[in-house]
């Protein structure tokens, strides 16, 4: 029990209020669907004819986004209610977008350099290729997102997805392509979606739907 003389920590109240909007696990499930799409895209691209293979990931982004928006509207809002945050929180969201955009830009530049100069390539010993690129371009930006969004599960997700490329390389020793990628990404996205579903179940138990509002 807190003493009355303790300070009212408004930052802590704001953080708690913000985190309650992420308690539903819907963002986690959405992220899991995106990672599943990434894995599927990499696995199926040799099988699906060009340019249709490019649409695999777009289809998963679409499915994920449709799920996210529908679930927020039909599950979260009636239970948790609606809230609009202030300028500081919007600033944090913008910082997240900025970091992700920079990351995407760097990836795009690297892709273009590689595309125009096929002889240029980053050579790392052993399986460090996937490990370094995964940690640098997946784990780091996802962890930045976790920090700015103040959403701790994203630290774990960032690490898991970042390691997926390295694990796919390791799995390729035992499994033929493209099953190495498929299995690793299915397991990783499965873990993320499962964690999201557990959060969702807890959320449904914590916030039942009330019939009417009074005011």
């Amino acid at each position, binding site marked *: 029990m807190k003493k009355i003389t303790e300070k009212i920590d408004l930052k802590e109240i*704001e953080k708690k209020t913000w985190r309650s909007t992420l308690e539903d696990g819907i963002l986690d499930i959405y992220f899991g669907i995106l990672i599943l799409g990434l894995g599927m895209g990499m696995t199926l691209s040799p099988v699906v004819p060009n340019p249709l293979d490019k649409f695999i990931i777009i289809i998963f982004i679409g499915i994920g986004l449709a799920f996210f928006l529908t679930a927020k509207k039909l599950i979260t809002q009636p239970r948790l209610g609606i*809230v609009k945050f202030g300028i500081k929180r919007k600033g944090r969201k913008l910082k997240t977008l900025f970091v992700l955009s920079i990351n995407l830009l760097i990836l795009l530049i690297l892709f273009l350099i590689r595309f125009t100069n096929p002889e240029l390539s980053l050579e790392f010993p052993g399986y460090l290729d996937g490990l370094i690129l995964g940690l640098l371009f997946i784990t780091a930006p996802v962890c930045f997102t976790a920090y700015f969004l103040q959403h701790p599960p994203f630290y774990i997700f960032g690490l898991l997805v970042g390691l997926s490329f390295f694990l796919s390389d390791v799995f390729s020793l035992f499994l033929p392509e493209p099953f190495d990628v498929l299995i690793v990404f299915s397991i990783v996205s499965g873990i993320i979606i499962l964690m999201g579903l557990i959060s969702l179940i807890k959320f449904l138990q914590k916030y039942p739907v*009330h019939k009417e509002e*009074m005011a």
Partner: protein
Amino acid sequence: MAKKKAESEDIIQPLSDIDKIIHEPSRLMIMSVLYVVESADFVFLRNQTGLTDGNLSSHLNRLESVGYVEVEKKFKGKKPQTILKLSKEGREAFEIYREKMEQVLTGLSEK
């Protein structure tokens, strides 16, 4: 002796200036939540404060009557929706309340 009495009055005096509308624990919770967000609906506020519908409703009426909270009632489809936000006066009153409480609590702290 007279000096000591004056000092103690300096510490206690701000207590009488504390905004009693905000000082009530339930209303303080409501004001704190509304202070850190731009706006929230009735359901969100109920979940954050843990108050019952009736309790929340009466405290909101009180805060609205003194002009601290702005209430906007609308319909979302067939369901009524009540959007709440702190007015400019409400924000200022909350900031003054915090300053006063800080003064009082600093004065009351054991040294």
